[in-house]
């Protein structure tokens, strides 16, 4: 029978790169003869196939010899596959009917014996010819991109990302767990190294986001379910009942004044201050509406009180309010879910929670914050005594085999900031206990120098313990920091009145669930994994899901903002494309052959494979599939086929490489 | 000049069986060889397999009696893993096994051996098959036979998983328990079986015993061969198919030995001949004296008849009744309470029907036993396996499986002594004898004559390598007579 395909074989000299080690003329005449019965109708060799003249050769043959397949034997597909595919496409041949096999990187450059190299090149070409016979014309898949975007997390990263996108005129849904956006930054007083006040730079952004025409703010809300794929995610959000009707509430906060129930504020005030059962986390909260914390509300507990309702002139209180389920359709998602602070109690030897005047960094932020519980007064727990000496311990829970191996990045600068503030406001002696000083960013080290010059003490060494057991009269009634001073090379005991622990940044306690819900993954430490640590730090392995800020790993505010903007830029790029073209290398289930054994169901890291309970067959979502082919190889029924790497194609190439297609099977 | 008559193929015996008859210069039978030309080698290729698979591998030795190999293999696993099955398990297995016996004996009597009698040994061959039987006795009966096979195969599938090649056997247990609904169904089937067995015995009495020619044929010297008889007996020395000791009695009825199946190697050895792929077992206690009958020759039979010969009787009433009737009719005397063995090969058919009755009655007893529906018949086994022997009575003779494994239960060694193999020597002898007594100087070898030669071994229901069957009782015999140069001088076949 006549071969069905008309195949052209093109052998590149690549100057002497290939021709130097491989007998290219021999190859082309051999291919023309020995592979004719396989459908090879043209075989040429040429100096530089990738040159425009070389490409013209191919184009000409495609037209004149009505080629249906093209095999180019040249360099690595990673170099010129696109080139030759385009050449074919321009000549009217589907680009995927062209196969580029490497006889340079894999033959001429790595072998020396011309005879052996030429023999191998023949095998490689015969493999390409057998393979290309089984190629199918493919079209890139295009997915329409829904222009709306979901941003999860209302910290500075999320705010920045949302802002960038909204300002470009595309809609953003910003979901925040807490009653207000702002995140950790809203809790800070000053920001290093410039020491400008966090609120001053953050709140304007919060306000404009809150009132932005293209932003739907969903605070006190959590994402419950995510379906779909890049361009077409459908997201279910639960908006928790706030028992306050935002349509009528004016945010006058009279309800907060009148509410009789005081609650320790362990979130915003880090446990240093109180809030009411109906509350806004802080005065500049966005949105301005309060929420009722049902767990602590007297009415919800006893059925009596209703003080807020009584005093609310707007009549905004609504005890009957229920959680609201909101369905969103978005094209892209940015996860900016931030971090949790390391629980300093776990470093028991530092006494946090046991020794009153040991504070965490976040507590201290509140302490120094003018809007904080002490109106910015740096005092001991008693609320009045000013410390005469303050110890600041770095790396609490970071760079510590017992807890987290990683460096939390911000602690050094944060501690320097604290040191400066203590000095400035109390004149107390300040001791920094550090392992290494890490001030590697614009103007960071300058700040370090400045604090040094302010007379802050720096002691290098891991602190052994913080204790209130005194050995000397001067230690009495004080906290003693027991440490090794590795510069002096001796043990030291330093009495202080206040200890600040620069606690580590940790992944959110529920980062695993979040990752699973959005179909991405977490590193061993629990941070979200980026698509590429260097070249693609804000994308993930799942198309259409991006990450920004500390959710991806500890970082300071500038980097966080940068990532927020970067993620936004990536999303905007997608939105502008309107449609997304995906490589047509995909796996597909042939329903008629699927027995529903479900072997394949949990093999896909992108959750592209689902089970259709009604039809009892497995289904692959082409837009989620990345084409790795693992399920194709695993399907015991051969019910899953993989385009461009089908069983037929690989087996054919295999037989070609073994020269089984020769009239006489020869094994070099 | 010497002539060689080749009967090829006899029938499929792990392939085909072949008889080579050599005539001397006078044209008398010099010698006759019964040849088994195929070997599959289960004993070797099972090595390396997990032992627990043996019941599901060795049943492929024979698709006609896979249940026998499945059961022998399963019992070998009990021993191999040192686990004693619960009474419920034993009874469930035996009931399953009885259903198999009913269908297998039915198949043989009506489709294999039966035609010789029902339609007659000299009837045209074209009629001597199951359809011939049906024509003779009527379609209704034919349908009864089919129905009997079907309902019992239904039980086999219910408990074994599949109608052919069951899968349920496990060390110390059985994969499938019997539910009450199923039990009720099986009980009904068992009762039908008893009725069918009664009917079959009556048919035999009417058709065979009612015909003096047949009786003479049965009693004729050409079909008489006194040898030792082997069979499995229960604690009361009654016939049992599933479990018991192996008893061997001399031609005159004297007990030679009664041994535990696991000791088979002490009492059985197998000869090898270069002209056949099948081995010839014989009694070690007597010794191999060649292909000769009698008390001094280690040759023995393991057939329905020899099972009856070796036992003191049948454990169920109707079967016992039929048992006594057979021995009385064949003129056997009771010696200290036991009938003397009989050695008329053709009466094996009769013995088979008596066993059919026993199997039916036994099945009924078991299915009405309260423990039969115990749901806990599958057990977890943790013992370290080493070596085990399993033995049952296959319809065609005592069947022994012997396995050795490593501590992971991977087989290192396998030995199988298969039902019909026991009878290889006696069959060879019977064939030779029939040939000698039928082919004399100057005889023209005719089809009827060939059929009589054939009848000599058909009575054994031969299942060589336990894979031999020809349902119409129709051996595709063909005789080629060549001169010493090998030139064909006469070719004839029994069905022209």
């Amino acid at each position, binding site marked *: 029978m006549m071969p069905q395909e008309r195949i052209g074989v093109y052998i590149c000299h690549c100057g002497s790169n290939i021709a130097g080690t491989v007998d290219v003329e021999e190859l082309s005449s051999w291919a023309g003869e020995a592979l004719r019965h396989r459908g090879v109708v043209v075989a040429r060799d040429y100096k530089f196939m990738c040159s425009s003249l070389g490409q013209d050769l191919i184009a000409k043959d495609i037209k004149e010899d009505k080629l249906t397949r093209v095999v180019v034997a040249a360099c690595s597909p990673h170099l010129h596959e696109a080139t030759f595919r385009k050449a074919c496409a321009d000549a009217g041949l589907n680009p995927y009917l062209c196969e580029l096999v490497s006889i340079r990187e894999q033959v001429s450059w790595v072998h020396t014996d011309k005879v052996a190299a030429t023999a191998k090149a023949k095998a490689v070409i015969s493999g390409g010819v057998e393979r290309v016979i089984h190629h199918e014309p493919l079209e890139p898949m295009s997915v329409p991109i829904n222009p709306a975007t979901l941003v999860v997390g209302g910290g500075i990263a999320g705010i920045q990302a949302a802002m960038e996108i909204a300002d470009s005129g595309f809609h953003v849904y910003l979901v925040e767990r807490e009653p207000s956006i702002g995140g950790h930054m809203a809790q800070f007083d000053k920001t290093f190294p410039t020491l400008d006040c966090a609120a001053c730079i953050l709140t304007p952004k919060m306000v404009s986001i809150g009132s932005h025409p293209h932003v739907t703010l969903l605070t006190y809300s959590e994402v419950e379910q995510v379906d779909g794929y890049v361009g077409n995610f459908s997201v279910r959000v639960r908006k928790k009942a706030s028992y306050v009707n935002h349509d009528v509430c004016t945010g006058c906060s009279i309800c907060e004044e009148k509410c009789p129930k005081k609650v320790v504020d362990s979130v915003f005030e880090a446990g240093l201050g109180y809030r009411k059962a109906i509350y806004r986390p802080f005065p500049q909260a966005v949105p301005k509406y309060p929420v009722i914390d049902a767990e602590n509300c007297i009415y919800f507990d006893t059925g009596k009180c209703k003080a807020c309702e009584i005093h609310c002139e707007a009549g905004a209180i609504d005890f009957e309010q229920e959680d609201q389920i909101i369905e969103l359709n978005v094209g892209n998602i940015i996860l900016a879910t931030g971090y949790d602070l390391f629980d300093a109690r776990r470093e028991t030897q530092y006494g946090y929670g046991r020794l009153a005047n040991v504070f965490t960094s976040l507590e201290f932020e509140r302490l120094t914050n003018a809007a904080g519980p002490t109106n910015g007064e740096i005092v001991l727990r008693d609320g009045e005594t000013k410390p005469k000496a303050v110890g600041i311990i770095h790396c609490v829970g970071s760079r510590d085999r017992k807890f987290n191996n990683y460096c939390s990045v911000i602690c050094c600068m944060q501690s320097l900031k604290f040191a400066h503030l203590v000095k400035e406001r109390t004149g107390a002696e300040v001791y920094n206990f550090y392992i290494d000083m890490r001030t590697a960013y614009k103007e960071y080290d300058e700040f370090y120098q400045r604090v040094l010059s302010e007379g802050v003490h720096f002691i290098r060494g891991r602190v052994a313990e913080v204790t209130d057991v005194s050995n000397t009269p001067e230690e009495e009634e004080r906290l003693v920091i027991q440490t090794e001073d590795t510069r002096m090379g001796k043990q030291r005991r330093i009495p202080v009145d206040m200890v600040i622990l620069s606690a580590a940044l940790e992944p959110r306690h529920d980062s695993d669930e979040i990752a699973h819900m959005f179909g991405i993954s977490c590193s061993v430490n629990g941070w979200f994994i980026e698509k590429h640590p260097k070249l693609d730090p804000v994308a993930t392995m799942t198309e259409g899901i991006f990450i920004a800020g500390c959710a991806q790993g500890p970082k300071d505010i500038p980097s966080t903002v940068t990532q927020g903007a970067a993620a936004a830029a990536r999303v905007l790029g997608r939105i502008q494309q309107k449609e997304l073209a995906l490589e047509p290398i995909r796996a597909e289930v042939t329903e008629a052959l699927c027995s529903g054994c479900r072997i394949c169901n949990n093999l896909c890291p992108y959750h592209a494979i689902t089970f259709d309970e009604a039809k009892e067959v497995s289904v692959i979502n082409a837009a989620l599939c990345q084409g790795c082919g693992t399920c194709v190889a695993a399907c015991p029924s051969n019910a899953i086929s993989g385009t461009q790497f089908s069983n037929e194609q690989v087996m054919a190439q295999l037989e070609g490489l073994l020269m089984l297609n020769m009239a006489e099977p020869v094994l070099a | 000049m010497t002539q060689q008559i080749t009967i090829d193929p006899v029938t499929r015996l792990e392939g085909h069986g072949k008889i080579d008859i050599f005539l001397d210069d006078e044209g008398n039978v010099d010698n006759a060889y019964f040849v088994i030309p195929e070997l599959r080698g289960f004993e070797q290729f099972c*090595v390396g397999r997990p032992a627990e698979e043996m019941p599901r591998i060795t049943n*492929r030795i024979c698709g006609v009696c896979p249940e026998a190999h499945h059961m022998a293999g399963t019992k070998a696993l009990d021993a191999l893993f040192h686990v004693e099955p619960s009474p419920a398990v034993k009874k469930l297995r035996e009931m399953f096994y009885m259903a198999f016996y009913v269908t297998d004996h039915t198949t043989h009597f009506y489709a294999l051996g039966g035609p010789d009698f029902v339609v007659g040994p000299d009837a045209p061959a074209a009629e001597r*098959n199951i359809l011939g039987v049906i024509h003779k006795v009527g379609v209704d009966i034919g349908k009864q036979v089919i129905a009997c096979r079907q309902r019992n195969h239904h039980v086999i599938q219910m408990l*074994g998983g599949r109608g052919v090649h069951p899968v349920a056997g496990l060390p110390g247990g059985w994969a499938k328990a019997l539910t009450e609904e199923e039990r009720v169904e099986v009980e009904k089937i068992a009762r039908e079986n008893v009725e069918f067995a009664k009917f079959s015995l009556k048919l035999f009495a009417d058709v065979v015993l009612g015909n003096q020619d047949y009786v003479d044929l049965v009693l004729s010297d050409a079909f008489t061969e006194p040898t030792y008889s082997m069979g499995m007996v229960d604690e009361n020395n009654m016939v049992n198919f599933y479990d018991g000791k192996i008893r061997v009695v001399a031609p005159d009825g004297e007990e030679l030995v009664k041994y535990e199946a696991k000791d088979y190697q002490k009492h059985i050895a197998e000869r090898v001949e270069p002209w056949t792929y099948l081995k010839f077992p014989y009694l070690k206690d007597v010794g191999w004296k060649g292909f000769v009958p009698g008390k001094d020759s280690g040759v023995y039979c393991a057939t329905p008849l020899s099972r009856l010969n070796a036992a003191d009787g049948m454990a169920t009433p109707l079967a016992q009744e039929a048992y006594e009737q057979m021995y009385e009719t064949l003129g056997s005397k009771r010696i200290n309470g036991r009938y003397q063995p009989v050695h008329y090969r053709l009466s094996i058919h009769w013995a088979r029907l008596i066993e059919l009755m026993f199997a039916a009655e036994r099945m009924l007893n078991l299915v009405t036993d309260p423990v039969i529906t115990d749901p806990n018949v599958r057990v977890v086994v943790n013992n370290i396996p080493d070596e085990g022997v399993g033995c049952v009575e296959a319809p065609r003779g005592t069947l022994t499986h012997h396995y050795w494994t490593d501590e992971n239960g991977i087989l290192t*060694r396998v*030995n199988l002594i298969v039902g019909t193999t026991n009878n290889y020597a006696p069959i060879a002898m019977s064939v030779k004898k029939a040939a000698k007594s039928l082919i004399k100087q100057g005889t023209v070898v005719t089809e009827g004559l060939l059929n009589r030669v054939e009848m000599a071994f058909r009575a054994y229901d031969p299942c060589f390598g336990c*894979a031999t069957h020809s349902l119409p009782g129709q051996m595709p015999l063909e005789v080629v007579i060549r001169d010493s140069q090998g030139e064909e001088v006469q070719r004839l076949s029994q*069905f022209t």
Partner: protein
Amino acid sequence: MSENGKPKFGMYWASSCGGCEISVLNIGEHILTVDEIFDVVFWPVAADFKYKDVRGYPDGYIDLCLFNGAIRNSENEEMAHLLRQKSKVLVAFGSCAYEGCIPALANFTSKEAILQTVFLDSPSVDNPDRVLPQPVTAVPEGEIRIPEMYETVKSLDQVVDVDYIIPGCPPEPHQIWAVLQVVVAALTEGAELPPKGSIVGAQETAVCEECIYPKSEKKIFRFYRPYEKVPEPGVCLLEQGIVCMGPATRGGCGALCPQVGMGCRGCYGPLGEVKDQGARMLSAMASVIGVGEPEMDERMLEREFETVMDTLADPAGTFYRFSMSHSLLRRAKVNGNGHAEPEPAEAGTTNVEMAN
């Protein structure tokens, strides 16, 4: 068609166990219908025939010939050629003819090892002169010939051209009857026959499709041999770690074995375009082993996997239980019964100890 206008039917067994014939008989009363519809011209199990007649038949005389049994020796192969020549439609009937079946497990070992084991090392054998069966034996009266046993068990399609395949060990009666009806329709009413080479009497999907147990995602943490676990009722056996060939095995039997709590044996052979049933099952099973995390140290990973795989006894014998002849490799290079080479001598001595 013969004088009486009936299609001519033949059935033959090569190296098989007879189960295929029993399964044909198990179509019950339909057997009488078969007798009515067909003119049986060759069927050792069910009717008379003349060998010399078969040889005398004109080529293609038999309309439908069901051939069961594998090709184990020269005689089997001769019959295959004869019947191919005499038959219009030759069907590989049952697992042996289709893919070798259980007897093809012999392809894991060698002819020599088989003869050694059976005739020399068997614990009960009495063979002082170490006699082995010979193709030709001189006896006082003349000479006796027996067929040559092959080294490798072959499937029917490896010796002759085959028109259709009916898989199964044995094919289930309801499937046999279904196929016969199709053939009759084709022969009598000229209905369309399936394309040559089709697998008939079975379905396009795996056993799981017919299996009574609901399926869910699979993660196997260890394998259980059938006596190591009493399966939880109503749960897929493979998900419980009990090896079941169902996912890689063609359906059509009705998923009988799993119904009694035993994993599918795999007797209906591979699916669709699958070239090697064993490799498919191997790949599927290895894919769903549940242990091991990407972060783990490589040695640790391998240890974890080894532990799980140690619970899977005799992988080759399991994956290729029925399809050995038709597998890509077809046979083992040396004795592959889990031993590098057969050790007859050693076995022999142990045997003596056992015997005494």
